[in-house]
């Protein structure tokens, strides 16, 4: 039987892969993909906790099933789309200035 811990383990693996992607890529768009992986891991956690630990309690008390985890996951998806759009706009600007997408070249603001 698939339990909550299965989803938590999957989410942990996705989160670790996202963090490793952020740390080991020089391509700025690759780093953006790592961020997307981490956000997806958080979403899996939110939806799993909502089903296993949160929604049933409200039903047991006679109320409508709680969907707060799903709402948070929906807002995270919206924010991820917005963040990807802004990040890609910044990367396009960066590419126009430096003719590369290598983040090692982004040293103008270094103190």
């Amino acid at each position, binding site marked *: *039987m698939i*339990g*909550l*811990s*299965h*989803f*938590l*383990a*999957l*989410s*942990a*693996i*996705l*989160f*670790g*892969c996202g963090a*490793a*992607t952020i*740390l*080991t*890529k*020089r*391509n*700025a*768009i690759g780093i*953006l*993909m790592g961020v*997307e*992986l981490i956000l*997806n891991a958080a979403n*899996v*956690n939110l*939806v799993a906790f*909502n*089903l*296993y630990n949160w929604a*049933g309690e409200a*039903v047991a008390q*006679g109320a*409508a*099933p*709680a969907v707060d985890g799903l*709402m948070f*996951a*929906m*807002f995270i*998806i*919206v924010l991820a*789309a*917005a963040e990807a*759009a*802004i990040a*890609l*706009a*910044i*990367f*396009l*600007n960066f590419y*126009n200035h430096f003719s590369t*997408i290598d983040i090692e070249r982004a040293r103008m603001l270094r103190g």
Partner: protein
Amino acid sequence: MLLAQQSQTLEPVAPWLFYLFAGVAVLGALGVVLSQQIVRMAVFLLFTLGSVAFLYFFLEAEFLAAIQLIVYVGGTLILIIFGVMLTSKNPFVRLTVPVPQRLLGWGIGLALALMTGFLGVKYVASQGAAAHDSPSLIADAPHDSQSLIVGVQGAEHYGVADLGRNLLGKYALPLELAGVLLLVVMIGAAYIAKGRHADFEEGGAQP
């Protein structure tokens, strides 16, 4: 009741399906980490996002699975692929980091995965394994529940109606803020990607 019966008939199949989609998701994530070509990373990310969308069905979040497929796979990933094509003369160009830095990054990622996985398993164990082996929504729901979702007779799971009721009630302010945010992002992205470039070309004579 209807859902409970359906899930009981699906029970022998569900673990295999879960392991299939979870395996595809994990392999895709590992491909994103290990691949050095940005186009292949995008394809691996496509597999991961799609598998996670299918896993939402196991968590009874059908609407969220649809949103994941439409917004993430159909929107964000296409945007990323457009970004890849626009920011690279050769899409298969390799930008590699030194091996020590790569090993350090993988080590940190592995440590974070182990830490969060350990915390999650410890939390489940502290809550009692028996109570959480099966979804509480199906196991604990009273069969004469007064709070039936409109349009779904006899099913004790949340549907799109609950999401809509929450969006326009409890979460009305975040919904409005998300709308304003999307407008700001649209204007800001257009300005950053285009307007600055024109300014830069006009003032290009400066050293």
